[in-house]
């Protein structure tokens, strides 16, 4: 800074000048500040690298030829660059059909889930009714109980499902049922679970949405009621528009978890080819394809699995890139509390 300017502005001095006046405090403070931020940057870079590394490894493996795997001089950059792996895997897991199926299954179930969970969460947040606390304890119970506990009986329940004679009273009298249908396989069973707030992690979404609606000031609705707005209309026109960021984030979570889930999908979607169905069996698929009895080399099978995983999560990664705010920010601003 020039001398003339310094005199003109009066208070503006050079950094060292100010440091001298503060008896070295300024220097110490800025050293501390800088060292903290350098330390933080190194740490965060390391952790980020740690998290992304498996993804990068998969990416590099997926472009290699098989002989690159056995070459010990190659670690992560393929020497024989190829896109054959993608073509082969896409064929093995029927990528096109599976992608379309996964997309509509996840979208539909997430939609049903979000509708039901929003309703339920709103009901818990705003109204007082008998057994409310007990019912909410039940929501907590659905979060805590591993789905595997009730899986076997739920499976049988849907295998011999009865729309008309729901609790089996008719069957008990006559000893036989006419209206029984098997809901396993086509996914109807799962959509029923989603619509009643019982699907994958529904309890968590109910909890999150209830927390959210509890934080919304009641005056909003009261004003609407005074103006003669009905309960449902108030909910749709006043509450929902404000809740959009929260709903988006719940929707995104539910979509992503549904997409990669294979617990419910192996149980309830047997007749529908989904992306996660064949991922685990790619080596066996390779064996079938080769037509011989010698199984493919482990490394080769795993290379294909890695490629398959990449194309499975590719749509999710693209979604995450664009909707990253929806995942993170809205949720961290809700203030989840017990």
């Amino acid at each position, binding site marked *: 800074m020039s001398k003339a300017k310094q005199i003109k502005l009066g208070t503006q001095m050079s950094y060292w000048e100010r440091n001298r006046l503060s008896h070295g405090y300024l220097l110490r403070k800025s050293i501390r500040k800088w060292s903290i931020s350098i330390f933080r940057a190194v740490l965060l870079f390391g952790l980020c690298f*740690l998290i992304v590394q498996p993804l990068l490894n998969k990416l590099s*493996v997926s472009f290699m030829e098989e002989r690159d795997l056995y070459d010990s001089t190659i670690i992560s950059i393929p020497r024989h660059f190829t896109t054959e792996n993608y073509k082969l895997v896409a064929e093995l897991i029927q990528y096109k059909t599976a992608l379309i199926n996964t997309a509509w299954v996840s979208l539909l179930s997430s939609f049903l889930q979000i509708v039901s969970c929003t309703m339920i969460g709103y009901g818990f947040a705003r109204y007082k009714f008998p057994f409310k606390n007990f*019912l909410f304890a039940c929501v907590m119970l659905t979060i*805590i109980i*591993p789905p595997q506990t009730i899986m076997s009986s739920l499976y049988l329940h849907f295998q011999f499902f009865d729309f008309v004679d729901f609790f089996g009273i008719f069957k008990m009298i006559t000893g036989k049922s006419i209206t029984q249908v098997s809901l396993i396989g086509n996914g109807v069973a799962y959509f029923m679970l989603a619509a009643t707030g019982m699907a994958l992690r529904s309890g968590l979404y109910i909890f999150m949405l209830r927390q959210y609606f509890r934080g919304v000031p009641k005056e909003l609705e009261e004003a609407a009621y005074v103006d003669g707005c009905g309960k449902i209309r108030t909910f749709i026109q006043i509450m929902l528009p404000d809740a959009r960021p929260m709903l988006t984030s719940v929707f995104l979570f539910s979509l992503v978890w549904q997409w990669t889930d294979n617990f419910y999908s192996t149980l309830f979607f047997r007749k529908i080819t989904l992306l996660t169905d064949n991922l685990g069996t790619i080596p066996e698929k390779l064996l079938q394809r080769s037509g011989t009895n010698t199984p493919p080399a*482990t490394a080769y099978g795993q290379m294909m699995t*890695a490629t398959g*995983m990449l194309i499975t999560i590719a749509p999710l990664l693209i979604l995450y890139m664009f909707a990253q705010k929806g995942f993170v920010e809205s*949720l961290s601003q809700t203030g989840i509390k017990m």
Partner: protein
Amino acid sequence: MAENNATPEITRAVNAPKSKRRGSSMAKRNAIAGILWTLPFTIGFIAFMLVPMFESAQMAFSNVTIDIQNHSYVKEWAGLKNFDYILNVDPMYKRQLLESLGNMGLQIVAVLIFSYFVAFLLNQEFKGRAFVRAMFFLPVILSSGILLNLDTNNSLVNSISTLIKESNNAASRVTGVLEDILASGNSQMSDLMQTIFDLVNSVYDIAIASGIQIIIFLSGLQTIPASMYEASKMEGCTGWESFWKITFPMTSSLIIVNVVYSIIDFCTRSDNVVMSQVKAQMLQKMDYGLTSAMAWMYFACIGVIVGLVTFIISKWVYYYE
């Protein structure tokens, strides 16, 4: 809720000043509305949770056989036979159960510390924060469902990670020497050190298991009013002190949330040995009685642990009203 009804009640009172019964009917109507809003859950809970739970509890105590002609299944009371089998005959189950619970304890402590630390870092102001946050929540996608399971089994990708780790020679030599010195002292101390080193080595597993926990802690950190820190600074509080006197107590209630979430997440994720064992048994052997017993046993253990941990932690949690 009483305050909620206040205004509509007043309007109604203006319209019909004489009827006193209106107030109670408003509460009643609200109660009905509440029941209707939550009706889907009530139906779902009874039909798809309570009934199957009851049945599966029954199955755990019986032999189940499938009757294909009659489109149904037969339960035959067998008492504690299934539990006796899994605890005394099955060579795998008991070992897997204990191992899984032990791992869970260690991992949850590590996840809690890690996620708290990361949340604290991500709550500070710095350049590129949005990007770093996005990176840390990537595991929510990358490690969900089947992907986690496949990842742990994929030795090819894992071996590349080891290669990369080893190529960082200088760093690994330093930690190697450190590990040798610390882990080879007197036995108790070295056991502890070995456990800690194992945890540090599995930092990737911990990082990918703590996506949601970071979000929860972060949300807690963001709700602490800045005025508290200002006041403490005026009183001459150092950063370290204000962490333990303000930040930690204000977020302590979230520790329960996170512990419970971590336990549940650990138990229900797809690479859990006990759960995958249960599923494999069900789909292969079709022995529904046995699998129900296995699942119930596991659930009982988890229920007890969740209850105990919540009880213990809630003793010293601080609630700021």
